[in-house]
């Protein structure tokens, strides 16, 4: 873990929030894609 100094909270918050948002987008996209595939093959 690198030394983040007095701004540790902000940096981690930025990484955490971005990860959460992007992760949610990726998860939703993959989930929808899978659902669409199931739909098509039914």
């Amino acid at each position, binding site marked *: 873990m*690198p*030394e*983040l*100094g*007095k*701004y*540790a909270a*902000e*940096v981690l*918050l*930025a*990484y955490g*929030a*971005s990860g959460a*948002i*992007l992760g949610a*987008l*990726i998860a939703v*996209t*993959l989930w*929808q*894609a899978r659902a*669409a*595939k199931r*739909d*098509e093959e*039914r």
Partner: protein
Amino acid sequence: MSIWEYANPVRFMGWTGRLLPWLWGGAALLVVGGLVWGFFFTPDDFRMGSTVKIIYLHVPSALMAINGWFVMVVASLIWLIRRHHVSALVARAAAPVGAVMTVVGLVTGAVWGQPMWGTWWVWDPRLTSFFVLFLFYLGYIALWQAIEDPDAAADLTSVLALVGGVFAILSRYAVLFWNQGLHQGATLSLDAEENIADVFWLPLVTTMAGFGLLFLALVLTRARMHVRLRRARARMLRTRVA
């Protein structure tokens, strides 16, 4: 063979199906690699301290946010001129991705602004025009969802993408006129004498490439989803008629 052959839905599903694992893999590699590089192995900036590490998220996502609308405009033009259905679906697929990238850009910017400028948000030209861009994305997505007939929806949203593109640029300059801001100028430009130092630049370029691949992977995956949904819908309509 003409390049437009790739827009045939069957062919599109074929080549994107083969390409996508590589895209996802490359995106994961570059994004994670670039972020780890930036987070663990770069020094702090002498003025901004460790907050400079936010740049590896902030700049690529902002770039993709603008790129998203650009993709929509190009895809819309192709749809309006050549009537490739896949193109309209790519435009549709790019909108939510671009909107999310805009949110990431805004959030990381706000978190960065807090310690640097002492405030989460200022009505600075860059921030403001980004927020306006986000509103444009919302309107575009809402219009897609509101119209039932797929071809009419594709046509109308294409027109909106073009008009919105013009107004987004117009707003950018209007906002610039309205208020001078705190945001720094471009970090990377070819004509500037002084650019960001190499230690920050290399991981930044890595994450920018990674976000580009991630954007492509997301858009193509979503476009494939829309193609499938449309096939399922067509089959449903056929069975209902039969």
